[in-house]
């Protein structure tokens, strides 16, 4: 019970909320916060240092005079970043069903483990004798990934999914060059994530599109049609970006191999099948695993990620350096192409050894879940997605008909036809209801796509509320209260932002002149 000054309990009477403007522009917990450049001061600092000992200057006459960076004290920094943090949605705050991104719960044990000094405070170029435990951790994670995927080799260094795609396709390219069979074309289904064609192009390949069939999957016939001796490989996402398992995957893999090409599987959606099927049994030659998706290393507002790649026997010898080798109880690193005995690494993709901080978190997740928990997680993720499908199938439209989906369910915008509400409006109205919208307008092949991935982390109660809310929104599009949608979000920290203006006349940094002018 809250008390007023006179010691009497306050009552709710007379306290109905309204849009009453405030003097500050703040709205209680939502506090307007300027940029650090507008609140800090170049003379101020939040870090105390002793004075440097007297010494000679050996900077080669290139001393810097000024930078223009403001500083803040610790209390000011805390307040600044806490305030802006309160303008963010996050998994810990609510349902975040961003399709293709696997926004599952991030266990805090994993954070704690990554911060153990033995992992967080070791240098990548320390002598190997002083980092045996770190190398063991990488080797252990690699072994778990191999067991889970049934593949022959693994590259741990790629820094995210897209970096892993490059790794796999570079290994394929190198394998073909080594065989004297260099090729020029990569097959990519139209539903693929943008990183797939971008990766193929980076490696100098031409991209040949593969259309999907009626049911949203790729047919072996379409692949055969597109295969010829120019084709280096196919980049196929499985489960695919429409939330469906490519049921003819084995026939596709066979056709690809028969044509002398290789099968790159985009493993962004591995969360649907961990412990249920092994990519190695499906004819896959390379697959990246987004540790920040399937294995719950936090998304961190856009990264960092980690994208280890697993390989078949045929491609494994071409995997990049560095890699860890185990001899009995001792571990060592192979850091250069010259040192790679018997293998033919395509080179090095990054300085050092990969995203160690993510490796620790992922292994901590895996050990916590174990073989039983990981399989249960995949089953629950798939169950949750299908439960949403079942809860919405009579009111929202599915582009490929109502069929069982994997860990994400895809809707299109035909249920919004003639309502005056777009996919974007619908998503923004979800924000007002306290949900993060699903992935919108992806995959590109589906009109007004809405891709919902609840993950295994949602309770039944959360799903029921989500379903009930979406049903109410669908009803709302029919009831004619269009402002609920077209004006949404009404209750977020910001109204809709003008993205056209941002792109037309880009302001990408604060500068004293421009911002002083704007303030007038």
């Amino acid at each position, binding site marked *: 019970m809250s008390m007023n000054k006179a010691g009497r309990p306050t009552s709710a009477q007379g306290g109905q909320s309204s849009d009453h403007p405030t003097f500050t522009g703040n709205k209680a917990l939502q506090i307007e916060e300027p*940029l650090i450049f507008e609140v800090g001061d170049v*003379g101020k600092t939040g870090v105390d*240092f002793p004075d*440097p000992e*007297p010494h000679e200057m050996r*900077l080669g006459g*290139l001393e*810097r005079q000024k930078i223009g*960076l403001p500083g803040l004290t*610790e209390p000011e920094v*805390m307040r600044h*970043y*806490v305030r802006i*943090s309160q*303008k*963010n*949605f*996050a*998994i810990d*705050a609510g349902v*975040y069903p961003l399709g293709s991104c696997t926004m599952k719960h*991030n266990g805090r044990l994993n954070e704690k483990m990554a911060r*153990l*000094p033995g992992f967080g*405070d*070791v*240098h990548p170029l320390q*002598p190997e*004798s*002083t*980092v045996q435990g770190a190398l063991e951790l990488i080797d252990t994670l690699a072994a778990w990934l191999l067991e889970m995927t049934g593949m022959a080799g693994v590259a741990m260094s790629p*820094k995210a*999914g*897209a970096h892993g795609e*490059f790794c796999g396709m570079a290994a394929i390219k190198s394998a073909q060059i080594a065989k004297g069979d260099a090729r020029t074309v990569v097959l990519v289904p139209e539903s693929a994530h943008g990183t797939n064609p971008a990766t193929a192009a980076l490696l*100098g390949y031409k991209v040949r599109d593969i259309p999907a069939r009626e049911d949203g999957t790729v047919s072996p016939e379409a692949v055969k049609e597109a295969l010829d001796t120019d084709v280096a490989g196919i980049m196929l996402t499985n489960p695919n970006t429409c939330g469906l398992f490519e*049921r003819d995957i*084995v026939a596709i893999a066979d056709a690809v191999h028969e044509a002398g090409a290789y099968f790159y599987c985009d493993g962004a959606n591995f969360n649907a099948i961990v*412990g249920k*099927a092994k990519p190695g049994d*499906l004819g896959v030659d390379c697959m990246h695993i987004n540790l920040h998706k399937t294995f719950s290393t936090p998304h*961190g*507002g856009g*990264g*960092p990620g980690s994208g280890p790649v697993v390989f078949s026997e045929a491609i494994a010898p071409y995997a990049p350096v560095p890699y860890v080798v185990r001899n009995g109880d001792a571990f060592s690193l192979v850091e250069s192409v010259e040192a790679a005995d018997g293998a033919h690494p395509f080179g090095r993709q*990054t*300085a050092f050894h990969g995203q*160690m901080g993510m490796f620790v978190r992922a292994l901590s997740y895996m050990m916590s879940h174990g073989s039983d928990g990981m399989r249960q997680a995949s*089953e629950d993720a798939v*169950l949750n997605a299908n439960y949403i499908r079942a809860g919405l199938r009579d009111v929202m439209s599915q582009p490929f008909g109502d069929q*069982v989906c994997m860990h994400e369910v895809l809707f299109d915008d035909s249920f919004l036809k003639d309502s005056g509400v777009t996919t974007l409006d619908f998503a923004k109205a979800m*924000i007002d209801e306290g949900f993060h919208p699903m992935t919108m307008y992806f995959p590109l092949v589906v009109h007004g796509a809405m891709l919902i991935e609840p993950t295994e982390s949602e309770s*039944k109660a959360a799903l029921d509320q989500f379903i009930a809310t979406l049903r109410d929104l669908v009803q709302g599009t029919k009831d004619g209260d269009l402002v609920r949608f077209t*004006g949404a979000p009404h209750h977020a920290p910001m109204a809709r*932002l*003008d*993205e056209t203006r941002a*792109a037309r006349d880009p302001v*990408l*940094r604060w500068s004293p002149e421009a911002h002083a002018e704007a303030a007038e």
Partner: protein
Amino acid sequence: MRYLPLTDDDRRSMLADIGVQNIDDLFADIPEDMRLKELIDLPRHASELEVERQLGEMAARNTPASSAPFFVGCGAYKHHVPASVDHLIQRSEFLTAYTPYQPEISQGTLQYLFEFQTQVALLTGMEVANASMYDGSTACGEAVLMAQRLTRRSKAVLSGSLHPQYRDVVSMLSDLSETSLETLAADPEGTEDIIASIDDETACVVVQSPDVFGRVRDLSAVAAAAHEKGALVIAVVTEVISLGALKPPGEMGADIVVAEGQSIGVGLSFGGPYVGLLATRQKYLRQMPGRVCGETVDANGKRGFVLTLSTREQHIRREKATSNICTNSGLCSLAFTIHLSLLGEAGLMKLASINHANAVMLADALAGIKGVDVLTPSFFNEFTIRVPGRGVDVIEALVDKGVLGGVPVARLVPGEKNLQDFIIVAATEVNTAEDRKAYVKALTEVLS
């Protein structure tokens, strides 16, 4: 299982609502004979306590940087990070959000990205910066590709004192995309003539300062020569604290600056995750890789921020994108921004001067050891020494004496026979006078 909210009752009733008998009906699209009947061959789930025990044992088999006199650098540096940085980046709102696709509920992330971009531009002396790359080395590779697009030329010239693993990244890209590359020989003594390699086919020259051997370099002459031939200059900085003491590349004619931001806020973490900085001139914006955040207004005219210029990016442009990068270094850029907000110009410059002071004192102390030569006349916080005997053995012998003494050059360039006796040594604000004494004593003993 502590992470899975569904109960068995929930599962049963949900299956019924979906209209299937059992969970395997939902996996029916997986070919029957490929469906795993048994659990995969890995341990069962484990409690927090058990996992902590096992991982704790592995962690205990490493020597943390803070547990010994520590002088290892070469692209990753041991610095002190204020406690508030790690506290703030673990706030759920930052840690458990993703890419700010919905700007109305992502202004926290977007605002720090805008602050980050501004700080990076100010530090490097450039006009604009992106919202981060994976790390310095991959940023370097991307910068070369960007220069090739901008100049429509193929040849990249790499200084011999570029970090060898950065060079490896660029040469891997060049091998696989069949562009031409000229790499100068490793150059610990600073004698290379990079200008002689610039010609009319040159897209870019890549020069690092302080270079991998620690030497501070004035880029102005290289930049003038490159620009005369229509080539671009890519400046690489692997120790970003140096920008608190040294003239920024932007004031020496650099067209693109890439840097490893790990030193500010991020920590060592055995090599990753780190944060790549990439800054350039406004006019080159459209060829810049990676996400960028821009300022705009909302429907009520209030200032806000959004991801912008996405027509450069893979999700819109697919095979015509400037890069395939999607996930970047989000949370590490937040750590960088918070730490740098705490430092400010005054703090950063002081931190830089302490680093320099400690390195100068260490260099002088090591130079006093019989048989040791300090090869780097001007440097920031890192320099190269020549020792009698193999650097690798000396470093290993120092470990036995409890000192982590630096990086043997042979570890980075195993092929080069004539670099066997070089060691790259770094000193930062974490090193005390006792650390320096311990190093001198240990090295003296090792060499005698």
